[in-house]
């Protein structure tokens, strides 16, 4: 299984990152959220810590080079800092977070990540607080801006992800000025469009995904394995199945075998033209 996976990665038909949806629970309810995550959702679809660790251990054996952990808000899980440390001991990892739950205690827990290949990717959509908070909820802008320097002080690498809907070039330029001033270089700033799945469908936001717009990257959730992290979406409380690879997620070989069968149809080398990450 390792050899065909590495070949698919080398040919640009698949990414070498394993994605984990740690939970669909979130303290925010962003208008474009792919997973309808929110504080009050009934089905939190949480992957247990041991499930995530086992998946990453098996991923390393199967030739995956890195891991992404997303949600929901990963830090809604009380033991996530420790889970992240354990994952980072196995493979380089980036954890996506809204950056609003970094109490002093949480920051102290994260000090255990020192020296490990781990980064936190915080969402920030605008240099204008009102514009940012319109999409992401009141107080989000101030909270994220307060968190970034505290993470950098602790030498935890920070990336910023900006999800754009109708920002002008000037607005984006202002945001870039802001993240540079916070100590986050351009290379650690990701800009991507809103994808019209999940809550963005209801809100009529974003762009439709074409079959080759996203590099396939095996993505595990409590509902199953999906083609990429933009696939495991929820609408009206129901998980979309159109990009489901398999309901079984472990052993990882089981979904990987099916994933490889599906990416066999992907154009070789097509990853260079795909912009959604």
């Amino acid at each position, binding site marked *: 299984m390792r050899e065909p996976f590495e070949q698919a990665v080398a040919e640009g038909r698949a990414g070498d990152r394993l994605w984990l949806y740690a939970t669909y629970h979130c303290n925010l309810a962003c208008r474009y959220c792919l997973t309808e995550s929110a504080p009050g959702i009934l089905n939190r679809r949480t992957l247990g810590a041991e499930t995530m660790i086992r998946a990453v251990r098996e991923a390393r054996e199967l030739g995956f080079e890195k891991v992404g952990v997303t949600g929901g808000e990963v830090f809604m899980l009380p033991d996530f800092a420790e889970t992240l440390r354990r994952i980072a001991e196995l493979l380089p990892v980036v954890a996506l977070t809204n950056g609003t739950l970094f109490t002093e205690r949480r920051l102290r827990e994260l000090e255990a990540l020192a020296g490990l290949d781990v980064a936190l990717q915080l969402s920030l959509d605008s240099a204008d607080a009102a514009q940012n908070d319109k999409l992401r909820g009141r107080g989000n802008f101030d909270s994220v801006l307060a968190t970034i320097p505290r993470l950098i002080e602790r030498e935890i690498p920070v990336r910023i992800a900006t999800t754009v809907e109708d920002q002008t070039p000037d607005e984006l330029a202002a945001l870039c000025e802001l993240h540079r001033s916070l100590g986050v270089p351009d290379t650690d700033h990701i800009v991507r469009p809103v994808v019209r799945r999940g809550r963005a469908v209801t809100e009529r936001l974003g762009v439709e995904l074409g079959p080759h717009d996203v590099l396939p990257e095996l993505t595990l959730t409590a509902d199953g394995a999906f*083609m990429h992290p933009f696939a495991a979406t929820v609408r009206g409380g129901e998980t*979309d*199945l*159109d*990009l*489901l*690879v*398999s*309901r*079984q997620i472990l052993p990882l070989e*089981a979904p990987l075998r*099916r994933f490889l*069968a*599906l990416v066999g149809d992907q154009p070789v080398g097509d990853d260079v033209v795909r912009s959604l990450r």
Partner: protein
Amino acid sequence: MSRLPLLSPTEAPPLARVWYREDGSASALTRSLASAPDLLETLMPYLGQVMGESSIDLQTKELVIVRVSQLNGCSYCLAAHRPVAGEVGVPDEQLAAVCDDVPLDRLPPRERALVEWVDRQTLDPGGIDDELVVRTLKHLRRDELIELTLLAGTITMLNQYCTAFRIPPPR
């Protein structure tokens, strides 16, 4: 009305779409199963093997399928398979007999023995005695009885699935 979503080809997982026809159509049963693509991956080839032509002819298999579905009262499977049974050559009188429209003694000896076996297996498998086994094996080879017993059990499973989830019968 179905208690399960009947997925269109665009809603179905990629690995389930291979079980849809080229024009995007599929049976309601397949469309309901598409939500569980890992199971379809093994279930569909198995159904093809156990329900398809083998060393046993299709008439015999369809006779079993219709009889079991009649016993279990599965409107979906009866609506789907009664026409198929006719198409593959099950005589009208035999079809009428297994659907309880005419007495079972209208069946030829081999089919009568088979139906007796299938009836007991479906309704009272613990009540099958050695004498029935011996009597049935006078008409069927052992491997045929194995295959037809698995077929009858599989059809009961599908009958239960279709009835429990109210899968809409084909028109």
